């Protein structure tokens, strides 16, 4: 009996240690960045480093805003919002066709969706830049929205497709007997019943558009059009070894993502497994 109890206690201790290790490795760099961003300049290079500043200060954040970080933040908010809206609208239409019709090219459309969903962006940026410079989509927020939409539509459509198939078709048919068109049935019946799907798809697009760095890096030249990640990238050259403002800018990017992630965590997983596990 005592041995069993001892073994249980050992198990609890081992689990606790594993939990602490996982937490430290995963969050350590982020928390250290947060701590750095709250340090005054003279505390930055002190050895041994303070794990948490004795006298935290907002000075680094103030410095960032006086250097105009508000503009890239607003650009990112604008681009993210529009991209999410367009992806959900166009994605819903496509998902509706996949969920409700049997048509000849359905297989081809699905392959297109899975393929584009799986193409890694770094292999696309050179041809995309070559193309964009021909058609005037360089250095344009609209251009960024269009490319982001093209990259995220397949995932959005895929997630929504899974949710639409769970909406009973009879409800729509009843609505159509009452004189609704297909489009009206989609808007008034299917979409309201697929809110979790819209949240999941929207969440994925939102996080992508907010986080994207490589596409925006090559497509945007003007300082006034930079998105937040591109601005952070150029801050590195501007601030050099001044890691206070640099880590502060990193936190400005992370915090909104974390808030969204914590609130909608449950919806997040369906998007990650999309393309691997049947939705």
């Amino acid at each position, binding site marked *: 009996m005592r041995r069993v109890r001892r073994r249980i206690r050992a198990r609890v201790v081992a689990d606790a240690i594993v939990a602490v290790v996982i937490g430290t490795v995963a969050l350590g*760099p982020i928390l250290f960045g947060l701590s750095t961003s709250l340090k005054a300049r003279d505390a930055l290079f002190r050895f041994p480093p303070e794990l948490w500043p004795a006298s935290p200060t907002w000075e680094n954040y103030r410095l960032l805003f006086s250097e105009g970080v508000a503009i890239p933040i607003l650009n990112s908010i604008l681009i993210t919002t529009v991209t999410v809206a367009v992806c959900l609208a166009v994605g819903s239409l496509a998902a509706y066709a996949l969920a409700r019709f049997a048509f000849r090219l359905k297989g081809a459309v699905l392959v297109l969706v899975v393929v584009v969903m799986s193409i890694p962006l770094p292999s696309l940026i050179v041809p995309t830049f070559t193309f964009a410079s021909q058609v005037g989509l360089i250095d344009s927020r609209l251009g960024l929205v269009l490319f982001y939409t093209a990259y995220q539509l397949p995932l959005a459509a895929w997630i929504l497709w899974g949710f639409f198939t769970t909406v009973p078709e009879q409800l729509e048919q009843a609505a159509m007997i009452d004189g609704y068109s297909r489009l009206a049935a989609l808007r008034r019946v299917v979409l309201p019943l697929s809110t979790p799907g819209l949240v999941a798809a929207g969440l994925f697009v939102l996080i992508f558009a907010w986080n994207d760095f490589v596409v925006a890096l090559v497509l945007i030249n003007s300082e006034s059009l930079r998105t937040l990640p591109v601005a952070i990238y150029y801050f590195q050259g501007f601030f050099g070894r001044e890691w206070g403002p640099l880590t502060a800018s990193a936190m400005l990017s992370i915090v909104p993502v974390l808030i969204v992630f914590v609130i909608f965590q449950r919806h997040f997983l369906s998007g990650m497994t999309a393309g691997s596990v049947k939705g």
Partner: protein
Amino acid sequence: MGATVPLAASVLRRPRRRIDARPYAFVLPLILFEIGLVLVPLGIGFYYSLHRVDFFRLGDYVGFDNFVRVLTSPDVLRSLAVTATFTIWSLVFTFAVGFSLALYLERDTRTNVALRAIVLIPHVISLLVGSLLLRWILSADAGVLALILNPVGLGDISILGDPGRAMGALVGNAIWRDTAFAMILLMAGLKGIPTQLYAAARVDGATAWYTFRRITLPLMRMPVLITVVRLVIHFVNVLTFALVLTGGGPGSATRGVSLQLYRLGFESYRFGQANALAMLMMAFNVVLILVLVRLFRQRGSA
């Protein structure tokens, strides 16, 4: 679907002979987006790869000259070796840690759900920001390394200044960020295994190891393959880790093929060769993606 279509639906649906245009109208916008902004750019890129390009001006048709040049360039060949090293190490560790975590955190207890969310955080934040934060914590200025390593007598170690250790840091970045991805995909696979199988094995007195080898592993074949292929696609192509964490250095020790491609295009402005290299990468990716589609189909029909 077929068998479960309710009566009303089958009555309402008249047999159609003509092609029904409605589904096409619904998917058309998506198709236009993908063709116009993904496939056409790839086509243009291919066209450019067959020409001499001086900065941005399209020159003469040169056949596969750019491809030959790219494939015989020592820089490109070195970058391929770097990418291979990075991909193999990252794959091994990310997969091993991801699978371990998937098994360890599979049960939906409150702590496990919380730990999964914590592991996911490095994955949901921007790639750029993650690499930036790792660069800070690994730098000598931060003092964190010295704090940890001084007691072991390795005080003045430089991580990003040494070729081998810089590669280690790059792999570390991959593990830190992408373990969660492997974990989630593999956990979805684990949850698909019927619990009765485990119960039956327990009744038969099977050990944990035996159950894992004879039940878990065989049934995880598809999820494992899919996870491995998706990780390989990601690691071969990822640009941000090297661009931000190591800058490809020291020297060219961590300059993988995607960073080589980026430099060729956006620093040397050789858009003929850069597009040729991009086409080669895309060809590699398409092969892997087709494998993925095939795996996915098999799984769908199984």
